[in-house]
């Protein structure tokens, strides 16, 4: 059995890691995954792996599985309102089917 869920993806500056994580926690999500990323956006190219004088220049990608669209919207709205005027960032949402996740699906599995 697969349990339908929403996957919210937020790509933003590493500087905001703790602040975004706090927003996700406060929204009541059971967890999230963070990856170091690089790439090209509308503002400029952001690469990782080059010697950089500070961490401000690297990007991260949050992936959050939420049970419903409401929670995902709540998180992305807050993140966008608080940070995306001044910081680089993008947020999008996908449909997902969770196959196995103890925390997410409950003790009996999905």
């Amino acid at each position: 059995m697969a349990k339908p869920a929403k996957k919210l993806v937020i790509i933003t500056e590493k500087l905001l890691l703790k602040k975004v994580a706090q927003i996700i926690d406060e929204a009541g999500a059971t967890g999230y995954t963070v990856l170091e990323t690089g790439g090209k956006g509308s503002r400029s190219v952001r690469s990782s792996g080059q010697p950089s004088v500070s961490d401000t220049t690297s990007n991260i990608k949050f992936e959050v599985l939420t049970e419903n669209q409401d929670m995902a919207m709540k998180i992305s709205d807050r993140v966008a309102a608080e940070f995306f005027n001044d910081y680089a960032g993008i947020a999008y949402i996908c449909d997902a089917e969770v196959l196995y996740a103890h925390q997410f699906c409950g003790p009996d599995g999905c």
Partner: protein
Amino acid sequence: MDFLSDFLARFGAQLQSPTLGFLIGGIVIAALGSELAIPDAIYKFIVFMLLIKVGLTGGMAIRNASLAEMLLPALFAMVTGIVIVLIGRYVFAKLPGIRVVDAVATGGLFGAVSGSTMVAGITVLEGQGLEYEAWAGALYPFMDIPALVTAIVVASIYTSRQKREKYLKNEKYLGKEEYIGMQPVAAGGAAIDQPVAAGGYSTSDQRSSGGYSGESGGSSGGYAKGPGGASSNRVKIWPIVKESLQGSALSALLLGLALGILTRPESVYESFYDPLFRGLLSILMLIMGMEAWARANELRKVAQWYALYAFVAPFLHGFIAFGLGMVAHYATGFSAGGVALLAIIAASSSDISGPPTLRAGIPSANPSAYIGASTAIGTPVAIALCIPLFVGLAQAMTGG
């Protein structure tokens, strides 16, 4: 003329020093498109090693020094940090095409201190045999933190005033001609509503100005008169100080200081930290050179005034600190090497702890502008030109 030829000879010798050689080498290979990449982790480790060594040296020296000697140089370091930001706000910001928040952030970054430049300066002082107080490295936080705090406070005052003015323009029912004094309002509506509006403003003004004077009193007294500012958007000083102290550079330096004062680290210092110091510094300079080239591209996207500021500022800031250092030299016998080091840390611009603090503290400022100006031009100028200049000046002025 003697002084000039003496200085030029020193400068020529400096060009052959490993410090500057590796910096230029880094710029050259980055410009040639080399694939050489030095991992971030190594960069961070080197910075940690160098600053903990400086901290240990300082800590061991403080054990034998009287704290009264440090008082005047530390005060002058604070004054320099604050003055640099105010120059950014009231001089640099007036240039055409410069946004005020960008100017304040740039001033803050140039007021803050670069660990690598300071370490390079210490190496030169030791190479020249110029005496300096070993605790002079401990002046770092006294300049760094006030500069960052001042920049963030000044920027917040400015942005909240901007917001307030925007709000007033949109707010029809408030008597805005009373507040701004130059926006005529249609007589009809305003006349009726004026008593209410005036009452509302006087209280909120008191509140906001009271808030600023209380909060910024610790770092500098000058903000009590800071006009405007929404009371809801107050600047909290302590989180900025905390963030600076928690940054990797200051943590390492302060840890080294504490260990130097409280423990007996001589054995590990002599066998490990001291011998590795110069070699690690050369790698750090290579990284700084590569970074400078990478950042130069970003700097091209912003106004050319940044390049000019980044070139002139290290000299100007260094001379301010040099002058204050000479006062301390005549007043309390602060050594010539100490004066040179104070000038060098004033000439430097932060590259490790400053950028993230400013990015978080002044989010509306453009990081390409201030980080680009600092890393691409400010730091190479400080290392290549200001270090030999101030070391030479200190030697000449004090007959050392």
